[in-house]
C-alpha cells in the first residue's frame, strides 16, 4: 500500500504542476487579450472562452492534492474533541462522505461529458471541441476518489496502531517548501 500512496502522491503532484501551467497560460492570455484590444484594436476572438476552459482545468486539477494533504475546508469544532477510538470511526465516516460525493460527481459529470461527445458540442465563439475539457471533471474527481479510498484504508492501519502512510498536517506544511524543485 505504501507504493500505492507514493504513486498517488506523484500523480497528484503532477496534476498540481499541470494546474499551475494552466494558471500561467490563463494569466498570460488575459493579459494579452487586454493589450491586443487596447493597443491594436484586435481583441483575441475566443480568449474569454479559452480562459474559462483553463480556469476549470486549473480548479479541478488542484482538488486531488487538497484531499491528499487534508487542505479542504472542514468544520471540525466538534470532531476534533472526540476521544480516540471514536475519532477514527468519525474520520472514516467523513472519508465515506467524500467518497460518496466524488462517486456521484464522477457518474454525472461522465454522463455530461459523454453526451457532449456524442453530439460533438462545441464552444460558442471559437468552436472548440468541448468534451475533452469536460473530461477533466470526472478524471480529477476519480483521482480524488482514489486518494480518499487510500486514506480510508490507511485509517484502519492507524486504528491498528501502525503509522500512517500519509503526511500529517505539519509534514504537509513543510512539504510546501520543497515542491519548487522542477
Amino acid at each position: 500500500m505504501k507504493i500505492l500512496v507514493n504513486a498517488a502522491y506523484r500523480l497528484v503532484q503532477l496534476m498540481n504542476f499541470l494546474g499551475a501551467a494552466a494558471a500561467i497560460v490563463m494569466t498570460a492570455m488575459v493579459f494579452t487579450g487586454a493589450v491586443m484590444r487596447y493597443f491594436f484594436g484586435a481583441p483575441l476572438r475566443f480568449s474569454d472562452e479559452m480562459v474559462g476552459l483553463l480556469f476549470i482545468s486549473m480548479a479541478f486539477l488542484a482538488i486531488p492534492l487538497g484531499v491528499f494533504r487534508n487542505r479542504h475546508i472542514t468544520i471540525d469544532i466538534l470532531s476534533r474533541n472526540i476521544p480516540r477510538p471514536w475519532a477514527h470511526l468519525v474520520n472514516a465516516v467523513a472519508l465515506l462522505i467524500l467518497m460518496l460525493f466524488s462517486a456521484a460527481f464522477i457518474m454525472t459529470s461522465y454522463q455530461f461529458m459523454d453526451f457532449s461527445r456524442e453530439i460533438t458540442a462545441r464552444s460558442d465563439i471559437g468552436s472548440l471541441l468541448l468534451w475533452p475539457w469536460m473530461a477533466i471533471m470526472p478524471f480529477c474527481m476519480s483521482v480524488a476518489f482514489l486518494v480518499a479510498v487510500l486514506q480510508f484504508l490507511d485509517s484502519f492501519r492507524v486504528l491498528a496502531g501502525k503509522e500512517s502512510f500519509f503526511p500529517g498536517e505539519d509534514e504537509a506544511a513543510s512539504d510546501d517548501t520543497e515542491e519548487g524543485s522542477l
Partner: protein
Amino acid sequence: MTWGILAGALLLTLVTGAVLGASLGLAGFVLLEFQAGGATDLAITSVWNVFTDFTLSAVPIFIILGDILLASGVSTRIYNGLTPLFHRIPGRLLHTNIAVTTIFGAVSGSSTSTAAAIGSVGYPELSRRGYDKPAIVASLAAGGTLGLLIPPSLSLLIYGATQNVSIGKLFLAGIIPGLIIAVGFSLYLMLASLLKPELTPNDEEKPGSREILHGLGQIWPLPILIFFVLGTIYLGFATVTEAAAMGVMAAILLGFLWGDLTLRKLWRSFLSSTVIFGAIAMILLGTIILAQAISILGLPRDLVDYIATLGLSKYEVLVLVVLVYLLLGCFFDGISLLLMTLPISFPLMMALGFDPIWFGVIVTILMEVGMITPPVGLNLFVLVTMTNREVDLGQASWATAPFWLVMVLSVVLFTLFPEIVLFLPSFY
C-alpha cells in the same frame, strides 16, 4: 423533508468534520435525486457554467498576484512602510484591511474578487506581525463585501437590469451606505482593540514623524500596483479580470527589479496559488450543487411567496423579507440568491410602496451579509483557505459576527432614514 435533508447534512458535517464541499454537494445530489425527480444532471451543468465563467477567473488571478507579492517581499516592504502611520490608531493595521477593501470595492464589482485580492497579501502580512488571526480574517471577509455595495456592483447591475431601475442611480445610491458601513467596521475594530488589546501586537515604542515619513518613502511601489490594478480599470483599459492579470505582470516586474523574486519563487507562487484555489474550488463545487438543488425546488420563491399571502403591514413584511434573506443567506451566496428571489420580492415590496432604488441597496446589503453567514459564505471560505487552516471556519465565523451585526444594524438605520440612501441619486 427538504429542510430535514439539509439539517441532517449539516449535522453530519459538523459531527464528522467531513470535507465541507463534499457534504454540501452530497446533500445537493440527494435533494436532486429524491426531491427533484432525479434531476442530477443539473448539478453538472451548473458547475460547468460557474467554472467556465470568465468573470470568476479574476479570483485565482488575484490570489496569484498576492502570492507573487509575498514571495518577492514587495508586500512586506509596503506593510512595513505603513506600520508607523497606523501606530496610534487602536486596531492599527487591521484598518488597512477595511480601507483597502473599500478602495478596491470601488473598482471591483464582486465581493469575492475583493476578498481574494486583499486577503492573499493582508492575511500573511498581518498574521506575521502578530495580529489576532481570526480578527484579520473577519475584517477581510467583511471588508470584501463592500465590493458589492460601492459601485461598480454586479448585484446592483443585475438588480437594475432585471427590474428596469436606473443603474446609474443605483450606483450613486450605493456609495454613502458603503462608506457608512466601512466606517462602522472601523469603529468596531477600534472598540474591539481597546477592549481586547491582544488583537494587535504589543510593541510599545511610538514612532515619531520622521519614522512615519521614512515609512511612507518605502511604499512607492504601491502607486504603481494601484495604477496597474485600479487605474487600468478606471481608464477603460481593462476589465476586472484583465486588471488582475495586469497586476500580476506588474508584480513580477517589481519583484524582479526591486524585490527578491526568482524564477523558482515565481513558479512556486503559481503552484501554491493553485493549491489554494483548489480548496476554494472544492467548496464552490459543493455550494453550487446545493444551491442548484434548492433553486430547482423553488424553495426561495416559496418562502417569499408565503410572506405575500400573510396580509401584513408594510414594515412587518419588510422585517420578514429581511429575515428570509438572512435565512437563505446561510445556504446561498450573493448573485444566485438575488436572481432566485427578486422576481417575487421586488413586486411585493413595490406594491407596499418602498422605493425601488432604496430596496436595491437594502437587498445588496443582505446579499453581502449572506457572503459572510456560515455555513455557506464564500468570502469566509476564500479567506479561511488562504490561512492554510490556521483559522478554522468556526473561529472565522465567530469573529465575523460583529461585522455581520454592523451590516444588519445599517439596514435598520437605512430603513429609519431612507434619505441616506436616496440623497445622492436625487441629484442624478
